[in-house]
């Protein structure tokens, strides 16, 4: 029998794995087996992202990884998830957890994304004031472009539009 990986040398290493009661055999030559052992591809469980995250969270909450002591014992009032649960699982309990754990969440988000401010899509209905702000920003950019290109008629239209948007923003409306 030839090695299943290189198919050039005879298979001398036989690996049997039992996963969920299913036996799986792999036949390899010594060289390929060694390589697999060094790189760990395919045979050893790979890093679990959530657990890795949990390590980071623990670090943020408690000063050191996987240290359970020293948490403030804060619990999200909406879903009941505690800081410890969050730190252990790496998953938040609900949208309300974000403001509840804000103090710890913001540095973590910065660490993951290098940023703490959303600049992407804003939902049409729920976006509310955020959408207005974005619309004003876009209109202002268009206004500048129109002025640069000496398209004064368009610029006048845009200026009126911005005024209206700003007015509804000041009135606390949602566009």
């Amino acid at each position, binding site marked *: 029998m030839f090695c*299943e*990986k290189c*198919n050039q040398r005879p298979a001398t290493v036989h690996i049997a794995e039992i996963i969920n009661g299913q*036996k*799986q*055999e*792999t036949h390899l030559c010594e060289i390929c087996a060694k390589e697999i052992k060094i790189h760990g*591809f*395919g045979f050893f*469980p*790979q*890093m*679990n*992202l*959530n657990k890795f*995250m949990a390590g980071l969270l623990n670090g943020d909450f408690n000063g050191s990884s996987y240290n359970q002591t020293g948490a403030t014992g804060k619990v999200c009032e*909406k*879903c009941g*998830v505690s800081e410890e649960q969050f730190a252990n*699982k*790496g*998953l*938040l*309990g*609900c*949208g*309300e957890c*974000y*403001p509840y754990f804000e103090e710890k*969440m913001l540095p*973590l*988000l910065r660490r*993951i*994304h*290098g*940023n*703490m*401010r*959303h*600049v*992407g*899509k*804003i*939902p*049409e*209905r*729920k*976006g*509310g*004031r*955020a959408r207005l702000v974005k619309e004003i920003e876009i209109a202002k950019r268009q206004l500048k472009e129109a002025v640069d290109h000496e398209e004064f008629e368009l610029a006048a239209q845009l200026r009126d539009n911005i005024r209206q948007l700003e007015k509804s923003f000041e009135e606390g409306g949602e566009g």
Partner: protein
Amino acid sequence: MPINGKTSSANSRWMNSDGPDAGIVISSRIRIARNLAGVPFPHLLEPEKSMEVINEIKKALENKEAADLIGNMELTLMNDLSLLERQILVDKHLISLELLNNFQSRAAAIRDDEAVTVMINEEDHLRIQCLFSGLRLKEAWAVVNNIDDGLERTLDYAFSEKLGYLTSCPTNTGTGLRASVMLHLTGLKITNQLGGVFNAISKLGLTVRGLYGEGTEALGDLFQISNQITLGQSEDEIINNLISITKQLLAQEQESRQVLYRERREVIEDRVCRAYGILKCARILAMEETMRMLSDLRLGIELKIISGIQEKLINELIVKIRPAFLIKTAGQDMSKRKLDIARAGLIRKEFENGHIGH
């Protein structure tokens, strides 16, 4: 098409190899994560509450006023599928591994052409994905964006002005967007350049994973490249960044293939024809070896060393040769040896019509 059609055929639209640069960029995928406001995330929900979430989303999917944005989607409860059927959907990249393992009170709505899936109660209440052949990330985002708008007409999303879409895992917060491409980088592999390329990619905020995502190995020189950052960049920025890096990779892969063919022509022809010979004649084929041979064969088709075999067939074979599909076809469970024999038999039959070009 009912769900049993989706599990009995290995083909999905994205495998048709008809997108731009589909010879190397096998597929493009966009996925977004969304949650319902005021409802705990799926991992905390009792089965009864999970079913309420499914029903609420089902209603939003069927909302007549949003039909033009959403299209025709068929919802299936994961409990109604066998492990084998769920595995086939995973193998076809239509649902995630998460739904394979945790299937109670979870559902997926798959569009008829299998390009779009809405997963319910995965890690988040909603995961919307679109999968296309070739480098078509912008088009996939347009589809996902429309469905998102359609659903938002009736669903209240968990959203914060400051942090964007709120997700169960903070790695998705913000846009909730994961854009990815599946690339066949065999030229870079043969010329030993992958290490350097992946190193560069990771410095640009992208990750590289194997064929079936997180924690899976890179079979057959197929790699998934995706964005890591979801907060502080807009959807367009994320997508454009991935597109420009993919184009770079594509150029480098093409370049290395040309160099190989120019400088080591006999070696490459020998490698491709050997792979073809093995696939055409072998009686026992293990998964890993088959994927390696299919990778060489795909290279041979691209370099026009082999003719009469469509890349579409190679894409379908990646699903057909996996244990789930072989077992489903045979109608019975099989040992690894039996699977290896069935795999070799299937491939021999599929390659009856191919031939070496010159």
